């Protein structure tokens, strides 16, 4: 399937928007997930059911609050706006009905996400929605 068509099949709200595919990862490169990407980890998935989860500090089944604690462990603090602040890399966390879904990071003034095998540039709300693959809503922002 064409890359753009694949992304647009996942996120109906992105259709017609000027999102950009920054990179399509090869099979060998595609060893990390969105949360790992936001933490600049490129060799493993970071999720509650993975070795990388700091289960000695955060219970594995702690849902969205668990992910907030994860970012706190990495030195992030909660913030309430998406505006770029010099010296900070902000992170958005998405959930759908309190189910953790996705994380995106602000790099310079752009929002970047690892979605499937793609690294894409997008606006935060373009990935939101209630379709099968959309990420629900923004649940918290860290910086």
């Amino acid at each position, binding site marked *: 399937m064409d890359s753009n068509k694949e992304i647009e099949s996942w996120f109906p709200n992105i259709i017609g928007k000027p999102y950009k595919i920054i990179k399509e990862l090869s099979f060998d490169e595609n*060893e990390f997930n969105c*949360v790992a990407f936001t933490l600049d980890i490129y060799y*493993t*998935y970071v*999720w509650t*059911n993975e*070795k*990388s989860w700091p289960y000695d500090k955060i219970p594995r089944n702690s849902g969205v609050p668990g992910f907030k604690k994860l970012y706190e462990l990495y030195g992030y603090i909660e913030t309430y706006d998406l505006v770029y602040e010099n010296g900070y890399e902000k992170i958005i966390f998405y959930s759908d009905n309190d189910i953790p879904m996705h*994380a995106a990071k602000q790099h310079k003034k752009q929002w970047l996400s690892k979605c499937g095998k793609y690294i894409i540039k997008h606006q935060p709300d373009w990935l939101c929605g209630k379709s099968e693959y959309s990420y629900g809503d923004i649940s918290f922002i860290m910086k």
Partner: protein
Amino acid sequence: MSKPNKLNKFNEFVSNDMIILKMIEEAESTPSSDLEEISKRKSYKNVVSIGEKVIPYLLKRNLIIWDRGLSELTGVGLNSLEHNTSERKEYWEKWAKENGF
């Protein structure tokens, strides 16, 4: 009507191969960040339900997404709570070589 047996068999082979690859690609097409959630999707289960025949296809893909499926099909594998994704991918690469794939 019964003469083109070989052709029928050839077409059957090509068709199966293409169908399996299409099913695999469909299961791989997901933006989900949770490998466990991916493995519970219908498209993923459909691939695993093909059985042992699909093992070489999945090994060739060499994608971490197939870690759970390969474990289910082979009865071996590494626990995701104890081994990171790179280690699990390496495990399947090694397992493929040792088992003649």
